């Protein structure tokens, strides 16, 4: 933080305080005016001998100058709200006027012996609050002089104040000079002590105010930095490319840390060299030095072992493999930290500044936080990329031979390799369908793996469900018959269309139906029904009298690769992906899927599809 700028804001803060207080004084004076009037009236009621006309005169004068000050303060606030001097003058003027009015009241209530001499204290306090400490003492001395002079003039008979008010009180005419002297000293001491106390308290309050103000600024700066860091992390989270992520990290870090340059160096597999992977603000010349041999760079060696390095003045140290380059670049101080996730070091993260001793401990801590988050983001993206690369590769490897087989089948079926009879053509068509369904499953596996997080909604269109299901069921009729399972399919005709997508419906239905047949022993049955549930939904039910699912395993059914114990015992076939894919498909179709089951009795899967509007 720039200290001159800080001073200005600080002064502004205290000036505003003065302008507020000066206005407040005007307000307090209205109360004083009212109090003076009421007191005068009460004293009269109680038959005190008070010269009412002059007192009222003083009160009228107070009202007058207070009105004036009210206007002046308002105007000052409008014209020069941030200038201190006019408000200071205004404060002096107010105190002086008040002292004059007080002097008049003191004169009217007994002069030197008037108890109102105590009220001088208020003005000393006000001066202490509003003005510099010296003025509290100045006004205290003025009070002492005034009271002393009054006492002297009264004693020599040069002034004859109105003394009958407290004739029988402690203060009455005729004290000896010795007593008068004691009274004067007590008053004078009270004035001075008040001035001392009020200025001391004020100075300590002001010091606290400054500290608070500084804390406020620091908090503000920290908040700005953290917000910038948050934005940086958010930006990194959206990066799909490793280089893009690191470039975003170096650029943002240089900006947030307010430094000239920033770099990320990555460690090679053998952990022997560091390669500049991303930089911001470094010259080509600097980068041209190439990879850093760790065995020749003690500083990098230490960092890779986990040490933080802050160098205040690069000139003094002998850390670098290429000290000339560092000097040429004009860097004087730097922080270098390991980029690491848990204990694994990915590389070295540095910020470079041209100023000497530019970094405080707080800066190092903050940079360490940035480094930690950056390393996490890098690690995260890397594992994402690995996963997606693996799945793509796996899917490609699986699909390539299938595509070849499929292409060859098509060549055969379409008689490019010679004529076929109808039976052969039909069987080849069946082969093609099966191959296609396998190929689609592989595609789904890929989709399930990579696109789980894909938030883009499926493109649904109006589909008539019954014909599609009938078509999809054909393969399974044969399968069920071969197994000896009775497959009864009852699809109501004339049902309204639903919003769907063929492939998703295929995923859903074929997975559910093949499951039902797979887990139903010979002689049992599978019943498929499609009907209208209510005006808004169609209901598809696939019920079997098969092996069922144990109650305790029902909650895990949609977990990928999960297969219930009795299912595994029943058949080796099955990847445990079917229901996960079906569920994923149903979610994308925006329908709902319920499974009820009892072990040994059977399973009923119910799907609800929203009817197209």
């Amino acid at each position, binding site marked *: 933080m720039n200290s001159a700028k800080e001073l200005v804001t600080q002064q502004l803060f205290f000036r505003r305080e003065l302008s507020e207080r000066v206005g407040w004084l005007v307000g307090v004076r209205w109360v004083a005016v009212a109090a003076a009037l009421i007191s005068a009236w009460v004293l009269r009621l109680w038959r005190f001998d008070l010269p009412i006309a002059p007192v009222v005169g003083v009160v009228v004068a107070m009202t007058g100058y207070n009105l004036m000050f009210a206007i002046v303060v308002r105007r000052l606030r409008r014209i020069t709200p941030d200038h201190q001097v006019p408000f200071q003058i205004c404060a002096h003027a107010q105190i002086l006027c008040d002292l004059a009015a007080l002097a008049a009241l003191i004169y009217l209530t007994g002069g030197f012996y008037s108890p109102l001499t105590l009220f001088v204290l208020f003005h000393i306090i006000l001066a202490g609050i509003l003005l510099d400490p010296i003025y509290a003492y100045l006004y205290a001395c003025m009070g002492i002089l005034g009271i002393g002079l009054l006492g002297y003039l009264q004693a020599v008979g040069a002034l004859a104040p109105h003394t009958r008010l407290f004739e029988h009180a402690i203060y009455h005419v005729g004290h000896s000079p010795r007593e008068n002297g004691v009274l004067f000293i007590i008053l004078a001491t009270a004035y001075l002590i008040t001035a001392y106390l009020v200025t001391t308290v004020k100075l300590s309050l002001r010091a606290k105010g400054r500290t608070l103000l500084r804390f406020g600024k620091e908090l503000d700066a920290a908040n700005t930095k953290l917000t910038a860091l948050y934005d940086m992390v958010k930006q990194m989270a959206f990066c799909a490319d490793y280089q893009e992520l690191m470039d975003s990290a170096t650029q943002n870090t240089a900006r947030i840390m307010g430094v000239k340059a920033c770099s990320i160096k990555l460690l090679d597999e053998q952990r022997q060299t560091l390669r500049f992977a991303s930089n911001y603000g470094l010259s080509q010349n600097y980068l041209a030095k190439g990879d850093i041999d760790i065995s020749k760079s003690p500083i990098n060696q230490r960092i890779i072992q986990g040490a933080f390095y802050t160098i205040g003045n690069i000139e003094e140290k002998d850390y670098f493999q290429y000290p000339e380059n560092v000097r040429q670049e004009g860097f004087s101080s730097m922080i270098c930290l390991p980029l690491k996730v848990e204990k694994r070091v990915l590389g070295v993260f540095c910020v470079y500044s041209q100023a000497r001793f530019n970094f405080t401990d707080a800066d190092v801590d903050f940079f360490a936080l940035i480094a930690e988050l950056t390393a996490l983001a890098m690690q995260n993206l890397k594992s994402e990329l690995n996963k997606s690369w693996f799945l793509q590769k796996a899917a490609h490897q699986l699909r390539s031979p299938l595509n070849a087989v*499929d292409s060859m089948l098509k060549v055969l079926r379409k008689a490019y390799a010679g004529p076929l009879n109808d039976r052969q053509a039909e069987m080849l068509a069946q082969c093609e369908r099966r191959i296609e369904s396998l190929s689609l499953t592989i595609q789904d596996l890929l989709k399930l793996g990579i696109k789980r997080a894909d938030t883009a909604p499926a493109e649904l269109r109006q589909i008539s469900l019954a014909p599609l299901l009938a078509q999809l069921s054909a393969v399974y009729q044969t399968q069920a018959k071969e197994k000896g399972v009775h497959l009864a399919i009852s699809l109501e005709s004339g049902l309204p269309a639903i919003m769907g997508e063929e492939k998703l419906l295929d995923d859903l239905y074929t997975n559910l139906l093949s499951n039902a047949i797979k887990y139903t022993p010979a002689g049992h049955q599978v019943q498929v029904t499609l009907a209208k549930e209510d005006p808004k939904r169609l209901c598809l039910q696939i019920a079997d009298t098969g092996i069922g699912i144990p109650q305790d395993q029902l909650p895990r059914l949609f977990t990928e690769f999960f297969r219930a114990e009795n299912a595994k015992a029943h058949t080796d076939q099955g990847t445990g992906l079917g229901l996960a894919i079906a569920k994923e498909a149903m979610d994308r179709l925006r329908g709902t899927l319920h499974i009820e089951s009892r072990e040994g009795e059977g399973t009923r899967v119910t799907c609800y599809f929203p009817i197209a509007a």
Partner: protein
Amino acid sequence: MDKANDILIIDDDRDLVHSMRIILETKPYTIRTAHNGKEGYHRVEEKIPDLIILDVMMATDTEGFDLAYRLRNQERYRDIPILMLTSFTQKMVETGADKFQHIMGEEWPVNKFLEKPIDPDVLLKTVEELLRGE
């Protein structure tokens, strides 16, 4: 057409190449084949084909594209129509284009994509269109 069109098929999947050969030989085409990018480039150097059918992923994920760009960057070979085979759907290639773009440059170096598995009728139709210059 006076002389048979010369079609060069470059794909590392020999079975698929064989299938395509069977399909294309039902028409008066001369078929040459190659099983990787390098071999394919040699075949092009030997004789400029009228059409190249090229697979995207061979030994590397982008071998097909690498060859396509190499050909597109040379005056002599720039105008050879290329039909690219992919096991991605057309849509995936299009939406995933930006993943390749920063390596490859601005424009796709091929005339048309054809999705695997290969449908003989579609292959013949596409080849005819490309040879006609559509």
